[in-house]
């Protein structure tokens, strides 16, 4: 396992009588991590402590080995922050704003200008970048907010509800952008959301918090582990499909047809050899019944089930 990116030890933050974070202990590894919780669960407080703009009442936390209170200055260059709220002055253009932010991260003027052009292109903002940001759509504003978080080349990107206020198409684009940033550029991402469904798609790990406490922190793979059902999508006419089902059944496997899709139950006592035999049977059946296999995968559990479980 890689060294932890973020560690928190009995992290507590109280606002008067309200306890926003309650002895949160968690270790987060590099990669894309989702921070999930209902509104008011303590996501933003956790994020702000990591960023060093809110002090913990008790406990401590570290980002890439730097303590968030004592070594605040060392964390600045390593972290990029995209807040949940609006933060764009309406009469500035995206170019001006992002390059000003780059300079506030200590980049020299020329470098700030070059990085600004690059990150704005990366987030997909072109001619609009010279116009005042007051006229931007929510989607464009979110892109600028992501660009300013990336402009100083951080090692960790902290995104607070990046899909807030976006329409479904905008959501997909933003998630694709976040996913690309995390996977292709080697920048770790901590992304918070109250929507589990969208994090499931892009995150490698999920940290689930509720009322300031850690509920679960696991790999998405472990959470949505493979089930014993094999999903096979086929290309072919009805007769060919029927022939395929018959042949798989003849091989001794439980099979169920749903239009172009066939669900095959794998043996419970799945030794590698037995699994291989089952896969072979499916392949042979397809070859002999003149159907093409479009997709073949183990069905996965859904995070939604986990959420229901945790809420119960």
């Amino acid at each position, binding site marked *: 396992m890689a060294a932890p990116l973020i560690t928190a030890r009995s992290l507590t933050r109280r606002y008067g009588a309200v306890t926003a974070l309650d002895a949160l202990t968690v270790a987060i590894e590099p990669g894309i991590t989702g921070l999930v919780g209902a509104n008011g669960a303590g996501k933003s407080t956790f994020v702000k402590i990591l960023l060093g703009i809110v002090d913990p009442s008790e406990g401590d936390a570290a980002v890439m080995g730097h303590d968030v209170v004592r070594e605040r200055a060392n964390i600045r260059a390593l972290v990029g922050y995209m807040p949940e709220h609006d933060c764009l002055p309406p009469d500035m253009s995206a170019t001006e704003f992002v390059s*000003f932010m780059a300079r506030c991260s200590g980049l020299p003027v020329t470098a700030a200008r070059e990085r600004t052009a690059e990150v704005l292109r*990366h987030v997909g903002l072109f001619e609009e970048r010279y116009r005042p940001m007051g006229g931007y759509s929510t989607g464009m504003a979110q892109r600028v907010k992501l660009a300013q978080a990336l402009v100083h080349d951080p090692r960790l990107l902290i995104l607070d509800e990046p899909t807030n206020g976006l329409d479904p198409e905008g959501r997909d684009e933003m998630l694709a952008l976040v996913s690309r940033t995390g996977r292709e550029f080697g920048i770790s991402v901590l992304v918070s959301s109250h929507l589990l469904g969208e994090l499931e798609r892009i995150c490698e790990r999920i940290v689930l918090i509720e009322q300031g406490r850690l509920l679960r922190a696991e790999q998405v793979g472990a959470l949505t582990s493979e089930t014993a059902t094999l999903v096979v999508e086929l290309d072919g006419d009805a007769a060919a499909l029927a022939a395929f089902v018959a042949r798989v059944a003849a091989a001794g496997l439980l099979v169920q047809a749903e239009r172009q899709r066939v669900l095959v139950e794998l043996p419970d006592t799945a030794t590698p050899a037995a699994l291989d035999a089952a896969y072979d049977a499916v392949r042979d059946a397809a070859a002999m019944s003149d159907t093409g296999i479009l997709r073949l995968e183990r069905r996965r559990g859904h995070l939604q089930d986990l959420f229901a479980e945790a809420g119960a």
Partner: protein
Amino acid sequence: MTPTDSTIHDLGYRRYDGEREGARGAFRALYWQGFRAMFGVGRPMKTKAVPVFVSVVTMLPALASVAASGATQGQLPITYANVIGAQALLFLLFSAAQAPEMLCRDQQHRVLPLLFTRDVTRTHYALARLLALFTAMFLVALAPLLILYLGEIGVAKDPGATFAKMGNKLGPVLLFATLLAWVMSTVSAFLSSLTPRRAYATAAVIGGFLGTVVISQGLQDLAGMSEAATKMIDPIETLRTTAMQLFGETKRWMELTPPPSVWVHVAALTALGFAAAAGLVWRVRRVPV
């Protein structure tokens, strides 16, 4: 990059391994961006209205004064303190309108969380913004005084002799511009940092300065305190008196009840500025983000 054909080259994401100037670079960026905003540079036209208006209107009487002195062959002396004292409210307008342009806007548009998670500490932020306002006000206050100073030398029959005689006036010119900019910028910056609403901040700055006029007048009329003492409560009047003393001019009331020495005034104004600057830093260190 010169576009030689219509192909778009997606270079993907590139790492930045270049120089990082850290807190020093961030301070400079904040200062420079703030200083430009004080004159509306690179901003919409309406933000240029107040700085341009104040600069022009404060320079005109100075030019007129120089012209009058020139036309009368120097018979009509140039009275620095009178000219600049009459402009005090215009300088107040500048600081009341422009200080919120920086300090309230950053709060209103919630830019502070972005700044404070970069190489900008809260104290650096407060000092960079204050310095930007101070420099802008210093230049605005210096302009008419410099016109008077250069004009007085220029219109003299023998500029060389006049310069030798009044070369020492440059000290008071610089000192007074510094004092005025220091008092007005610190107090306006402190009051503006208290609210994200620009209109409230402008009202607070003007109300704050003019409120002292009322108190000063009230104490004089009702409590029967001496004019020299009550004028010390009113920073603008104190600035005017200080100008009179620095430029060796006088008014009737000053002869009747001599005010404290010029250095008492300078010390009081400097201290007021430091108190307001400390208040600004205190507030910015606590402003919720």
